[in-house]
């Protein structure tokens, strides 16, 4: 048999055999295990000991989207949480709240059990309708919370100024 034909047939055979091996006909072989949940464990339960929290005093902006995309996006410096110990699966929440716009944006981190060190939280981007932005500056409350067992503990908070650009 020519080598090209052999190569093609072998390839097809390997693919088919692997698929059947992983299937229900061959018990005990799991070639495609269930995907692990993005956050495992008992989310929101546990405790976290925090040594220090740091987030910027400046650098908060409402920036108009590029390329004529029109909407405004809240840009904030990252928050850093120095974690001493983690028990269970608590949450760390970084939140920016602009009362005058009735708008709040938060991003949550899930430090894993036994983790020690710095957790960095970047505020996710989402779009605000340009019609809502009337002023050139806004005041915002910035907070970092530890959330566990359905209780929020404010680790640090600060009022900052948000500059509107574009």
């Amino acid at each position, binding site marked *: 048999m020519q080598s090209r034909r052999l190569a093609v047939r072998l*390839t097809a055979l390997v693919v088919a055999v692997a698929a059947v091996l992983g299937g229900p006909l061959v018990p005990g072989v799991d070639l495609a295990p269930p995907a692990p949940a993005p956050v495992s464990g008992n989310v929101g339960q546990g405790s976290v000991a925090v040594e220090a929290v740091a987030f910027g005093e400046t650098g908060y902006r409402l920036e108009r989207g590029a390329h004529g995309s029109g*909407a405004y996006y809240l840009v904030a410096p990252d928050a850093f949480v120095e974690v001493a110990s983690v028990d269970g699966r608590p949450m760390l929440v970084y939140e920016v709240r602009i009362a005058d716009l009735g708008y709040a944006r938060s991003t949550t981190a899930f430090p894993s059990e036994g983790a020690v060190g710095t957790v960095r939280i970047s505020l996710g981007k989402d779009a605000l309708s340009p019609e809502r932005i009337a002023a050139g500056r806004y005041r915002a409350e910035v907070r970092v919370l530890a959330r566990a067992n359905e209780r929020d503990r404010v680790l640090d908070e600060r009022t900052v100024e948000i500059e509107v650009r574009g």
Partner: protein
Amino acid sequence: MTDGEGDGPDSDSGFRSRGLARLRRAGRALYGVAFGDRCGAALFLGALAFFGLYWRVGVFITDTYTVANAAAAVSEGSLSVDRIAYGPASGETPGMVVAGGERYGRNYGQVFLALPAAHLLRGLALVADLRLAVVGLWCLSLLGCFVLLGRITGRRRAFALAGSGVVLALFGANLAVATELEARWIPLAALQLSSMTAAAMTAVLLYRLVRRIRGRRTGMAAGAAVAFASPVGFWAPLPKRHASVAALVVAVAYCLYRTREAETAAGPDGRARRRDRRRRALGFRALAYGLVGFCAWIQPAEALALLVALVPADLLTARSTGRRELAAVGGAFGLSLLPFLLTNYAMSGNPLLPPRLLPRYAGEALSPTSAVEGPGRGTGALGDGSVDAASDPLSASASADAGGRRSAAVALARFLGRVGATAIDNAGLFWRFMARGVDALLDGDRLYRTFVRSGYVDSVAPEDGNEAISLSLLESMPLLGAALALPGHLALRLREDPGRSGRSGRSGRPGARARREVDPTPARAVDLFSLAFAGVLTLLYLPRLPLHATVTVRYLVPAVPALAYLLTRLEPVRSAARAWRTMAWAYAATVLVGGQLLLLATLLRRPALGEAMQGHALLALAAALCLGVWGLSTASTARRSDRLGAVLLGAVGGVATAFLLLSGVVHFSAAGEFALPAVRVVSEALSAA
């Protein structure tokens, strides 16, 4: 193009048994009917492998829940949606309707088209791991594409060995990171699989159509453009109806061409030959109308648009339309409407009332019969179209007194009266849509936002979460910039025409007209049909455009192959596409280099979704502008630059391909779980980088 042994998918000399030989012949015939030739088959498999890269198993737009739940119900043997397999448990999703105390989905033609794929996946899941089976199917289509490319280019060994290596490596990579694909996704994945098949067939049919008019290379370019560089590619792996309707549109165009071709064909005459040609012409003509009827099962308004475009294009170019033709065409159309009519009848008791015209389901209590779980219910059983009269409000009063023969006649008369009234209502509805479409044509801003530049549109973006993701037609298909070559095309025609009539086809540019003169009627029929369909479809939807959640003006996607076809009819475009090597290199360079630069920009700037989409939009507009300027320049009598045109066509196609890949793998990665585990890993790595 070398012609070796066997054109079929499998050429082996080891067949001895008669049964197998017959099977093989049937397979070959099927292969010919579906793909035409190796190039068509390679295009098909290549397109499938391409779509597979950004196939995300999941729901992209909320009304997909409705169709997916209908698909799940149909695959369990029921038209009505009793069990909600996907989405909110209330079943109150856009497009879900209610009739006679039952809940129904819509686009049943699309749902039924997905049944074979559902059976295939179910069957595979019995013997193999579902995820690996999906990966395996993808790998085999890629391998098949390699093998066919080897045959086409005459370098079988190189392509077979390289293809085997690449496919094994890709399979291994996917295997290493494979995760389970749950069986509950099968009905939805089947919808996606059939949509991808339809999109790939759109490319194949366009290739076959254009090949007959302009030759193989232009045909390949047109087919590839639709699959790899147009919104058809964007919607291919998404479980919507658009790719299926696009496939039907180009299939109708193909049939129309074949019927005119058979009518006008010159050649060795003889009574048998002539009869043969007449029969073929009639068959394709009937098939064209049959496809329109079938389309009604998927989306009746779009089918009506097809019919409105097909009838004049057909009648104006037909050699003769006698009683025989009318009977065949009417018969085929009527037969093909049956599934549509029966499905409607089973739902509401009115065959002309499609799901789209039924009241929206708003969480009301369903009739007690549907609360009974299990297989006991006969209502709405597939295919038989019977409906239980008690659950049918429209015929309930009629059947209540259906005792004697007289009352049966009365019931029938009422039924016919109702159907007739619905027919008039529907025609009126379509007419009102058209009239509103004509009004909308006068709205400059609407036209600009829909066809040229989207940006942040106040009436659209808020519905898309303030992200300006719904692009204009030109932004989603920059190749349409080549339409500006129309003046050049006309100029060329004007210059050529006097000579052609004087010296019967041997004038014009030397060489180009040297081939035998072809009757222009078949192509003109398709020109007319394509223009008319694109126009009617635009009128149909324009009053609602620009609209949110359309991303690439998805309502106009069925017109995309027609528009691509019309581009190939422009003389300057065809002439440029003749420098196909240049075009292919420009395309490859743009995808490989430009695509990576775009990816790099995305990684460095981390744009929000709207920013990313508008970035692509601006790039596409710039590309379309370059192509348009070249197109306009072809009108000048000075020497045309075909080479520049080829470079631009290739590069602009590359820009569109990069958009499909980036939007599928990066920007819209949340549309579901990637079918290919390796792509999931790449996508996650890119969004985390």
